[in-house]
């Protein structure tokens, strides 16, 4: 929380006004609404409203079989689809006790990290617009995201709704030139990260706008249940990839990026550094990638699971993306619950924003990197 300047004695009567930011405001990153109570330019209260994008994705998943649910994961977390799919298929695999072949696991890791990269590029671009760079950061971020998205399209046949992971492995084999294409993309991304770093991090006004703004302490961040880069910026080294390794994250070497100050700048810069770590991970994965099967030998046409419940969580670009799955037997979930990282991160918004300026609210919201589809589901 930023320290508000001292309040002067008012000689005449003043009144706080309400400003309705959203759901049709250009910088709320989707249909999100916050009602700001402002005293001049200072924010005295914030009330966030979510739910405009609620489509009942969880309930819908209960009406369809396990394979069909994969598509719905894409639609909740549309900037990190592979990470969302992964949580879901991991939950199904654990229920059905399926063994995933080694090659499929490495490819999953590569795709998830690439998706983290593309998601962070999207964040860097959109955040530039929030801070007020007229489109330049946005275009730069999108340029690099586009390259990654093209690769995804070559692999899965779709730009956004991949539905490529399957319980047990992958839908089909990756193209022959997969490895060279990934290396090309990595080269591009490294260059793009350097450029965005130069454009934004080195800018004095950018530093002035982000440093010391929207501070949240480690304790508060934990209490609100934040995760991902938002939590790590406050200095909590929590990363599910390292703490509870899934896939083969225990076999690769990477750093968990933490910040010191818990402000907007740490959340921003943490993502830039995290993207570089992702590149490191992908390179290690590429070296371990060997030919082999991508689905288990004995995969039934219609997947049925025994009764039981399971909770899987993965480190998505925005934090912990968890799937709680209850099965009563049969080919569809009895209950599916998505633990949304963005929703929890968004809870901390009020604490961060109060006492700041109107312009800070936009920057702080941007630094949380929310995807409203995931928040509302």
């Amino acid at each position, binding site marked *: 929380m930023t320290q508000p*300047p001292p309040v002067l004695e008012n000689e005449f009567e003043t009144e706080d*006004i*309400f*400003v*309705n930011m959203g759901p049709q*405001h*250009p*910088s709320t990153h989707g249909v999100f609404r916050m009602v700001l109570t*402002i005293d001049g*330019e200072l924010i005295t209260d914030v009330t966030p409203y979510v739910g405009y994008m609620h489509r009942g994705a969880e309930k819908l998943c209960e009406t369809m079989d396990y394979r069909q649910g994969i598509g719905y994961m894409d639609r909740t977390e549309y900037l990190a689809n592979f990470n969302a799919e992964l949580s879901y298929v991991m939950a199904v695999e654990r229920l059905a006790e399926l063994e995933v072949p080694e090659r499929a696991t490495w490819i999953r890791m590569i795709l998830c990290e690439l998706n983290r990269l593309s998601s962070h590029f999207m964040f860097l671009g959109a955040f*530039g*617009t*929030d*801070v*007020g*760079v*007229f*489109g*330049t950061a946005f*275009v*730069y971020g999108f*340029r690099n995201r586009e390259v990654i998205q093209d690769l995804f399209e070559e692999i899965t046949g779709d730009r956004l709704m991949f539905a490529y992971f399957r319980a047990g492995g992958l839908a089909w084999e990756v193209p022959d030139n997969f490895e060279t294409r990934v290396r090309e993309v990595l080269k591009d991304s490294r260059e793009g990260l350097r450029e965005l770093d130069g*454009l*934004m991090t080195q*800018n*004095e*006004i*950018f*530093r*002035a*706008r982000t*440093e*010391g*703004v929207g*501070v*949240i*302490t*480690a*304790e*508060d961040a*934990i209490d609100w249940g934040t995760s991902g880069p938002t939590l790590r910026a*406050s*200095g*909590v*080294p*929590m990363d599910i990839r390292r703490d509870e390794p899934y896939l083969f994250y225990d076999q690769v070497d990477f750093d968990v990026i933490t910040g*010191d*100050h*818990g*402000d907007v*700048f740490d959340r921003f810069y943490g993502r830039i550094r995290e993207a570089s770590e992702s590149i490191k991970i992908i390179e290690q994965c590429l070296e371990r990638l060997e030919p082999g099967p991508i689905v288990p030998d004995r995969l039934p046409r219609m997947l049925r699971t025994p009764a039981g419940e399971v909770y899987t969580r993965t480190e998505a670009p925005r934090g912990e993306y968890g799937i709680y799955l209850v099965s009563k037997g049969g080919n569809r979930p009895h209950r599916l619950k998505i633990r949304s990282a963005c929703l929890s991160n968004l809870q901390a918004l009020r604490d961060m924003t109060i006492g700041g*300026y*109107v*312009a*800070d609210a*936009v920057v702080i919201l941007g630094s949380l990197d929310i995807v409203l589809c995931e928040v509302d589901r």
Partner: protein
Amino acid sequence: MNVGLFGIENVNIWVDAVIRLQLIVILMTVVVMGLIYGERKIIGRFQRRLGPMRTGPFGILQSLADALKLVGKEDLRPRGADPWVFELAVYFVFVPVFMAFVAVPFAFDWNVRVLELGLFYVVAISSINIVGWVMAGWASDNRYAMLGALRAAAQGISYELPLILSLIAVSMVVSTDAGRGSLDLGVIVAEQGHIPYIVWQPLAFAIFYVAMLAELNRTPFDIPVGESEVVGGPFVEYSGIRWSMFFLAEYAGLFILSLVGAAVFLGGWAWPLGEEVGPVWQLLLTAGKALLLIFSVFWVRVTMPRMRIDQLMGFSWKVLLPMSFALILVNGLILVYDWPDVVLLASNVVGLIALYLIIDRGITRRRVRPPARAGAATTA
């Protein structure tokens, strides 16, 4: 100096004035459309895009198409708006900008009117538009518009002072036949035949440039119209022809201040070709210098993030204003003791270094590690 237009003598003074003003209005409209097209193209290049490409060859008719579209749109007024103030606000923004052109020298002896207080007149008249902004914001019955208008008022007043003071600093050192000091833009330009004033007064130019960006609400000082914060500021409720007039005024303001900057600091039509080359070259020189300034404004726009209101105000009152006062004081001392012009340059360079250091060290907030809450769960 009332020579008839194009060498025609004995023209009625009123007819002459009307014709000149008409020429200015036509020139302005064309220039503004060109500027908008140029800005879109230049920004497109900066952002690895092509900019407008569909309307005409290289999209050259894009501004025309936009203008036609805007004229054809419905002129909406919100129900809660104050009708008179809402509709009059446009003119308070639009008219002063055009009036400012009266005193600007385009080439030797090419201006609408020669005013002895030309510089004073330009800065005085071009600051009226703040009234229009506040009117627009207040009458729109919209909180974003209101926020934007208040921001515009605060910003406009804060940066008016450094802008004027930096111009005064230059006008003090102008040496004329009658001694030093002149506010006549024509005289100021003519005096720069050998060396433009940016050489002697770089600090004044720096202050002028920053204040100009702020006066025009351009990035990084575009907080009154910040798209991501106040969604367009005072103009959020305007549409059609009214909105396009605000837009026209914005770019006309950019052009006029660039012309003034080119005239006062970059030597206008006089440097480096002198008086004898004729109006064509002089017009080209003036336009080229103004366009150079405008290009740099576009460049800044695509690179810089927006400042926050407190940083913006602080920068004006704590940095630019004291600096411009100091500049005037030093200039005055130099004039009183009749020191050589090199001292002007030296003092300005010192000031520039100080300004750089302040910007480099001063704006950034000091970051503090958030204090740990007592009794909180300890973390790994």
